[in-house]
């Protein structure tokens, strides 16, 4: 196609998308940044430049401290469990089992529903009521004699986000499994055969050969899960509404902007979210694009 010099037509065809995305992605990120440097409140036009004041103010804000802690607890639990459950399930599915398609489809099913539906259902499963009002998973544990598992779920002090992580793991570990399974299936059978001929046990084959080969998949999975966990929002809203103990930056941003009309603080929170995601995603993008070029 190099012979064709008529670049004009192709640029013209692309132009609407380029213009729209230039405005709605890059332009808006810029506008958001500039709002975060002012004291803009609500819809009245009066606003002054205040530099990085909003950024420093949030660092001293007790609510933001709760947000950071909650995001940290959620991210670590969610990423760690989804990753290991996903990998375990993928290895399990890959053992030439019967009805593989059935197990795989059920494990992956939660991906088809929204975080809102997941939240609406799990808020009933994780009902923390005690005594005669006990229900949900606590009631199931009680009936099965597994009393030691009965807990306060997302209403547990300090560690409540672990209760939010559970439905998130339920929803995303099947997806993580699919990622790993695609990775496992791309390893040629000869590699395993060769190792078996050399007398290596299956365990050693996985540990020494297969796991190192699917390390890139694990990296993508961590980035994808991290991306989700840093902006977790609708799942918490559906499970618990807006509670201070389960607050995260995305909820704070939403409330302060659209309920309290504190646009400047909302924009600052949005920038913090953007930066935290960028820390995750940009190194990954650089690594993958370098690999593609190599």
């Amino acid at each position: 196609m190099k012979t064709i010099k008529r670049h004009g037509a192709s640029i013209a065809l692309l132009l609407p998308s380029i213009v729209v995305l230039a405005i709605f992605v890059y332009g808006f990120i810029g506008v958001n940044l500039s709002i975060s440097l002012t004291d803009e409140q609500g819809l009245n036009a009066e606003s002054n430049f205040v530099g990085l004041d909003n950024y420093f103010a949030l660092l001293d804000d007790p609510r933001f401290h709760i947000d950071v802690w909650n995001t940290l607890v959620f991210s670590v639990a969610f990423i760690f469990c989804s990753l290991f459950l996903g990998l375990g399930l993928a290895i399990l599915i890959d053992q030439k089992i019967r009805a593989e398609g059935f197990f795989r489809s059920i494990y992956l099913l939660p991906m088809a529903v929204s975080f809102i539906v997941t939240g609406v259902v799990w808020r009933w499963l994780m009902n923390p009521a005690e005594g005669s009002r006990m229900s949900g998973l606590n009631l199931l544990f009680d009936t099965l004699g597994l009393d030691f598992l009965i807990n306060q779920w997302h209403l547990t002090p300090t560690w409540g986000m672990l209760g939010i992580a559970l439905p998130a793991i339920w929803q995303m570990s099947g997806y993580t499994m699919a990622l790993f399974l695609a990775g496992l299936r791309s390893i040629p059978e000869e590699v395993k055969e060769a190792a078996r001929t050399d007398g290596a046990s299956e365990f050693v084959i996985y540990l020494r050969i297969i796991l190192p080969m699917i390390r890139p998949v694990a990296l993508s999975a961590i980035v994808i899960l991290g991306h989700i966990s840093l902006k977790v929002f609708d799942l918490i809203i559906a499970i618990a509404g807006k509670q201070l103990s389960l607050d995260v930056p995305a909820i704070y941003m939403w409330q302060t902007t659209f309920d309290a009309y504190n646009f400047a603080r909302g924009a600052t929170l949005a920038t913090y979210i953007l930066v935290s995601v960028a820390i995750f995603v940009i190194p990954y993008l650089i690594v993958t694009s370098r690999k593609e070029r190599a």
Partner: protein
Amino acid sequence: MTTQLTRRPPIQPKRMVVKTLQYSLLVFFLAFFLIPIYVVLVTSLKPLDQVSLQTMWDLPTGIDIANYVLAWEKLGPSIGNSFYLVIPAALLAALLGSLNGYVLSKWKFPGSELIFTLILFGMFIPYQAILIPLVQTVRELGLYGGIPGLILVHVIYGLPIMTLIFRNYYLSVPDELIEAALVDGSGIFKTYWLIIFPISIPAFIVGIIWEFTSIWNDFLFAVVLTSADAWPVTVALNNIAGSQIVQWNVQMAGAVLASLPTILVYIFLGKYFLRGMLAGSLKG
């Protein structure tokens, strides 16, 4: 996890143990994934006189669709809104993504790779980072509150992933096909329409399914951009969740109704669903 991996073919009894362990684990996780679905279905089918949190794990004594009738009364209009939103948005986003992908794979120009990367960046951003200017802009366009504004927003933010899916698909289409059309005197758009569009059906299925699912399940854009009469089903369902007025059996029936379209897509078009998911794993 280690025991079932240390299998050596010649020892049969050990193999039996390993297999038993494997299937036990598979069934255990089956229960983990199915328990919430069991609760939802069982609860949504219980007659109203069996509404009790204490018996939530019991099977219903009979099947009663009263909850579904009530849930439909609450959510019917918003399910209609969701369809009215999702169908045009998914089709438009896929069509534009297809044109972009076509240009970026077959009509490359100096700088087109850079433009592709810049377009792609749009799918990695957390939408909070553009939310405030977005709401202001949608207001200024006079589209705030209704579904057309939400369609516009979903089409725009769907462009990066759609462009990616179609570009990757067209990379596997041989250049000779297009050169032949050009020799016949077709221009860039006519070539697209006559040659490329007809062979794009698989990519369109993947793209439209992806957009359908992610727009149907979206909450953030819907909750900040629409007013009550235009709410899609995610917002309407969240609004009755945990409410004391709407009984929880009805909420469960509502959860089923709200997820039925995407679950049906998953069941019948699972292969394409997965393909889109693996391609678009970083959206939003």
